[in-house]
């Protein structure tokens, strides 16, 4: 039963209706099973193979499918890891005020740490664990991708858990669901929709840092993992335009296929998990999975699996994690606001994380040993990055508001443009970066311009989507009032569009700013054709110190970045957000 909810293949009621069988559906399923098995075998073989000292990436077209498979499997495993982490972490954080006060600030800080700061610890530990097999480096890549995917998932899960309506909670208690049953029947389903949207974001984040995760340097050792990301960077390094194009096209096809075959059907399926009743929202197509329901093999498999696997496992877990059903009195008291605890605990949390990083990296030297001049350098770099991030974000606000409004107000235009915008947005900007660098490095300004362009490409979509959503959410009657009172041009902007869009704009800006900070590590520092380009800034400092093995600087710079990100979130973004929602929210 539980699986029936988790897996969109055959809902209960399809059994009741007559199912039309199509032989080709079964054929497709068989084919798919074959492909998956082969893929697993290939990937498994690669992982367990002995480690080669120098991996060379072949730029021939025929190697692309294999590289795609490798990259995809890395992404998938990293995502599954992130999901498991998020579920455990989010559930724990929501389980009581004590844990909440500890875990949530830690998460806040973790979100501010860029992927490369985890590099030395992760790589050294995992490669040391499996010195003679590919496994070590592969796991390191997966964990690196994981660090770019998991925090928002954990946040979203936590958010959902603490916003479950009281009556549903009470119903679960009165029905005496065990903890396991409560988790699977109430909490997880309730968290499903936001979890799905965040999964989509996480995958985008993963693709964005794929190249950084497949090719990295640590001191004298350079790791190059066979995959699309490595393929793209090698192609760019060699100036091989046709390989670069082929790699890009493959990546885009993969992303679009995933979007159409997985995410959209999942989003449509997840409609049932919405608690509020939305009438008249158009359902998205279920193209991706429709044919699956016509397959007898799958239907049989699903039911066999349900009977002989899911149900026993559900029962078993219920007994294992159920805990006594009639517990002592459940807590009813409201969870206190976390504001006043925040600073204390987040400082503690940063201390813990830093300690872990220090221990992990075996740097062993206290930050106090960093000379004042180095701190000066870090602070100057931080200022530069701050400027860059703010520039990127404000530039984004400038162009997306008029463009988003134009698209949002015009339904026909929106219909035409939206799919294209979505497709463009799904291409990870880092994949385009080599091409951009190739062109722009020759021009004056070089990396300065290219870096900001990269950050913009990676983050402006969030702003644009939010602005479009904001314009779409303007109630019709308000638009009509504006039309009747013949407001035009600037007045219309000032009185209707800008205020209505503002909360959405702020949401977009917050996401974009977070993304831009994380992107500095790839945007400010590029190794290209054996030459190092450094635009200056905190990201560059982190990237360089990770590469050269200067762990002290790495830790110090990471700490500064995390502090800035968390501090900005607290001092600027959240306030702006609260102001925007309080003042400009359009009541339904």
């Amino acid at each position: 039963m539980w699986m029936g909810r988790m897996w969109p293949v055959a809902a209960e009621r399809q059994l009741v209706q007559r199912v039309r069988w199509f032989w080709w559906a079964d054929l497709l399923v068989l084919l798919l099973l074959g492909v998956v098995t082969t893929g697993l075998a290939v990937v498994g073989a690669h992982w367990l193979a002995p480690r080669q000292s120098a991996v060379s990436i072949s730029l021939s077209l025929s190697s692309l499918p294999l590289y795609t498979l490798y990259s995809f499997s890395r992404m998938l495993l990293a995502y599954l890891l992130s999901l498991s982490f998020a579920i455990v972490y989010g559930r724990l954080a929501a389980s009581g005020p004590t844990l909440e006060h500890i875990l949530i600030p830690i998460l806040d800080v973790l979100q501010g740490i860029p992927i490369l700061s985890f590099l030395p610890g992760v790589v050294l530990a995992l490669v040391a664990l499996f010195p003679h097999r590919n496994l070590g480096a592969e796991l390191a890549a997966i964990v690196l991708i994981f660090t770019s995917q998991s925090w928002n998932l954990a946040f979203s899960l936590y958010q959902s858990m603490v916003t479950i309506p009281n009556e549903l909670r009470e119903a679960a208690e009165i029905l005496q669901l065990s903890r396991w049953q409560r988790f699977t029947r109430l909490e997880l389903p309730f968290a499903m929709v936001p979890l799905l949207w965040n999964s989509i974001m996480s995958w985008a984040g993963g693709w964005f840092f794929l190249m950084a995760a497949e090719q990295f340097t640590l001191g004298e050792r350079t790791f190059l993992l066979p995959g699309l990301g490595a393929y793209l960077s090698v192609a760019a390094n060699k100036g091989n335009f046709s390989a670069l194009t082929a790699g890009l096209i493959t990546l885009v096809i993969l992303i679009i296929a995933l979007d159409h075959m997985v995410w959209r059907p999942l989003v449509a399926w997840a409609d049932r998990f919405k608690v509020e009743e939305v009438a008249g929202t158009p359902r998205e197509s279920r193209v991706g999975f429709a044919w699956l329901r016509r397959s007898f093999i799958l239907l049989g498999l699903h039911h066999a699996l349900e009977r002989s696997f899911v149900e026993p496992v559900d029962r078993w877990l219920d007994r294992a994690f159920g805990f006594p059903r009639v517990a002592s009195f459940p807590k009813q008291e409201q969870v206190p606001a976390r504001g006043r605890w925040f600073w204390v605990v987040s400082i503690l949390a940063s201390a813990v994380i830093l300690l872990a990083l220090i221990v992990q990296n075996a740097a062993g030297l206290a930050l106090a040993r960093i000379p004042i001049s180095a701190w000066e350098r870090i602070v100057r770099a931080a200022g530069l990055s701050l400027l860059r991030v703010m520039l990127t974000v404000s530039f984004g606000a400038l162009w997306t508001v008029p463009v988003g409004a134009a698209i949002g107000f015009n339904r026909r235009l929106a219909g035409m443009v939206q799919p294209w915008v979505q497709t463009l947005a799904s291409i990870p900007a880092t994949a385009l970066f080599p091409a951009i660098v190739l062109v722009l490095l020759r021009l004056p300004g070089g990396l300065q311009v290219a870096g900001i362009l990269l950050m913009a490409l990676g983050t402006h979509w969030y702003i644009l989507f939010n602005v479009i959503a904001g314009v779409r959410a303007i109630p019709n009657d308000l638009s009509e009032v504006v039309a009747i009172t013949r407001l035009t041009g600037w007045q219309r902007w000032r009185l209707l569009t800008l205020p209505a869009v503002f909360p959405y704009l702020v949401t977009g800006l917050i996401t974009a700013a977070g993304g831009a900070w994380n992107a500095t590590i790839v945007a400010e520092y590029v190794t290209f054709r054996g030459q190092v380009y450094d635009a200056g800034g905190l990201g560059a400092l982190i990237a360089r110190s990770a590469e050269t093995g200067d762990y002290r600087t790495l830790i110090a710079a990471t700490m500064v970045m995390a502090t800035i990100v968390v501090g900005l979130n607290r001092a600027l973004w959240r306030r702006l957000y609260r102001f925007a929602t309080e003042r400009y929210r359009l009541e339904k």
Partner: protein
Amino acid sequence: MLGTSVLRTPNKGAVLLEARGITKLYDANGDHVVVLDNVSLELCDGEVVALLGPSGSGKSTLLRIIAGLVAPSRGEVRVHGEVLRGVNPLVGMVFQSFALFPWLTVLENVELGLLRKDLPKNERRARALTALEMVGLGGFEHAYPRELSGGMKQRVGFARALVAEPELLLLDEPFSSLDVLTAENLRRDLLDLWLTGRIPTRAIVLVTHNIDEAVYLADRLIIFSANPGRIRAELPGLPLAQRLQKSQATHDMVDLLYRLLTDPQEDVQRLIPQARVVQAPAHPSYQVLPCVGVGELTGFVERIAQGGGYEDVFELARELQLTADQLLPLIEATRLLGLCAIVEGDVLLTDTGKAFVKADVRKRKEHFRKLVWEHVDLIREIVHLLQDTPDLRQTEDELLKRLEVHYRSAEARRQLATAIEWGRYAELFAYDEQERLLYLDQEHDVSNLEDSQQFNA
């Protein structure tokens, strides 16, 4: 209508559950607020008990304490003589908002009620289907809740509560989010299930604001009073035959209950001799502002003027389609301002009220200003406070802090919100929504009012 013959006799049986000396405190800024004050209640085999009373009198809280969802601060609940700790295993509960899980089908929702029993899947399914048949939802088992109308959703809610065959059925305003006819229909079906003994439930507790509903369903009625929540009175319900026919006796009973509920000061024993007075309602040491908007208030006074200056409370509720908890604050507010009075279950327009209705919009505002100044302590206090601050302004939070000495914080917020609305309309002070700031300027000169008050005194 009732199909089968009535099997259940309304004789009181053994005590199933006993709540003794229940006090519930909630923390409000370090202060305790008493929601239930030393309340006791027994539930016996074979009875339907209705809990009635003003909003915030702790009816839902008591229900949740009986269900074991909330722990009492003092006192204990005994189930068959044993002290209850944690969720009461013998109850089923139906919620005002249905509380169905939208991602589960109707059948799966009902099966949730059986998960605790660790039955084989087929058996569970069969029992859930039987429960669905029983509430008249056979054939809908594979629908999702969002496909159902409100009435059908609540039927699922009943099926889910009943499928585990609970001894005690707790209903928290189960019909109040349904439209009138649907609610009527569902009520009748519930009574039918109960009377014909098709459900093994042995007692039902119903929280409601609908007096007709309470009279129709209940064998025993418990009337609560608020601030703090106490049981003001307990009275026996009408004999079943009278309830089923909706006789004159039903009508009279509803009328009496309206009178009782709309007037917290009314002497219960005098009004209903067969009632038992349980706890004396508390006399608040400070004035409580009913949460009523100025527009509503004016409309209400106008409506009474149209009826010739007086109106039976019960008729009024009927006509305006207001439940007791909606009507009560209106009556309280108009009484507080001296616009109306209550005499023998009728609302009467006072002379002040008549003058108020006759006046035009501008004059009315002046009347209102004077009345508020004379009668509403809180608003007068606010104005004096503002006058005493050097820059003639105060933040809302500052005022809230002062109010929280008397009221629990949610209540303080409500009180202040009403005071702000009235005071603003009366132009006794101004309010800046953005800054959450109350302030005085030249327009808010109250010297003439001060004089008149001194004169009055």
